[in-house]
């Protein structure tokens, strides 16, 4: 494990369930690691694979996508689309040479503050073990932009 490595983790959270769940973790004063940078989106279905590829190409060590539990999506089926996308994206990332463990999809409801805090801890530990994502660095070196 690399010394002094603090994982840089991007979290996408849907407005209706997961973001509220995170908020609950906060208001319940549950501790979770500070490594997460949260972006709120209206629905997990809004998350374009481009966002995730850009995150990895720009140095994110991990990306956590969260959404409503199956059956609970505010827009009925956005989370199913997300699930299909993420599963295919995992495969694509592997092909690109990004460990698929750097991407994780979790369902977090508005009442699951504690569950969110636990997922956050676990994911940060998992990324810590994987070590830094070196692709951003290599990308910059390899291709001088005109």
């Amino acid at each position: 494990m690399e010394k002094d490595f603090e994982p840089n983790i991007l979290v996408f959270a849907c407005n209706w369930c997961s973001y509220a769940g995170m908020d609950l973790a906060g208001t319940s004063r549950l501790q979770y690691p500070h490594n997460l940078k949260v972006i709120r989106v209206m629905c997990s279905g809004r998350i374009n694979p481009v966002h995730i590829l850009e995150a990895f190409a720009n140095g994110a060590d991990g990306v956590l996508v969260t959404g409503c539990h199956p059956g609970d999506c505010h827009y009925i089926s956005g989370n199913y689309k997300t699930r299909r996308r993420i599963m295919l994206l995992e495969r694509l990332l592997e092909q690109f040479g990004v460990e698929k463990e750097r991407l994780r999809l979790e369902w977090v409801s508005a009442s699951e503050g504690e569950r969110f805090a636990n997922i956050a801890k676990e994911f940060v530990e998992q990324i810590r073990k994987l070590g830094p994502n070196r692709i951003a660095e290599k990308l910059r070196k390899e291709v001088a932009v005109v």
Partner: protein
Amino acid sequence: MSKPKLAIIPGANCAGCDYSLLDLGEKIIDVLIATEIAYWPTAADLKLEDLEKLPDGSIDIVLFEGAVNNDETEEMAKLARKKAKNLIAFGACACFGGIPGLANVASRDSILQKAYIKSLSTVNQQGIVPYKITKVDGGELTVPELLETVKSLDQVVKVDYYLPGCPPPLKLTADALVAALSGKLPPKGTVFGSMKSVCDDCKRIRENKRITEIKRYHQIVPDAEKCLLEQGIVCMGPATRGGCDAICPTVNIPCRGCMGPTSESRDQGARMLSALSSVIGLEGEAGVSDEDVRKLVLQIKDPLGTFYRYTLPKSIMRRVWGVRE
């Protein structure tokens, strides 16, 4: 008044783009009458020195054809930029890296090893792998050295216009030539093509059907009227810039994406991944396990090679990171 100068400068190409110019038919004579050919190795007997001798910025239209894959094509790209008033990336390879750009799935060394040593059909008793300088009996030979990563033209020099396609559709080539020769070029950075996707040009009937099975092209005889994607064949139409009149789906062949990403997206593969994730799916998904969803989507055996067939170097990731032997 002197005629406008035209040059076609090759990079890592197959010359298919030049050949496509012959499809202009008799109109090619008009082009030849209206221009002075400054350099075009496939068709004109001019030497590299002739090109080098011309003043910088003196060639009105330079079509650069092919990707940049070694130190020689890199030099050609720089020379093209220097001599060009208007530099047009001509074809999918120059625009996005194209088929030669698929070399970015492997390291340079593994490619050389495969081509010169490991492939079954190779007989190479001395085990010579041609790097920049190779020692042979009686001296040294030099060949252009492969770059580690294949690039699109605009990853090496500034490009004024893009004319995508493999090869570019004749209509678009003609539009570009007419615009350039009549001094009516659109704003710099324009991509010749449509602002919409191939699907918008495609006449096949879409029923917003979900698919549960991906089929390889040889496994079915597709219905001639219906959308190929909705029949389970991976058709890149939704993720691909229009302008080709959807010629492939029109003749029952799925689009492979040679026009590159649509005007709204910078990563063709990501767009296709989204589009495909929207059409593929099982009934009653709430009860379906992650494993079953994974099995469903992993029917797509090679997402990278399928979604980025023409655009890997121009994709967000640009190449495969980590060695694949």
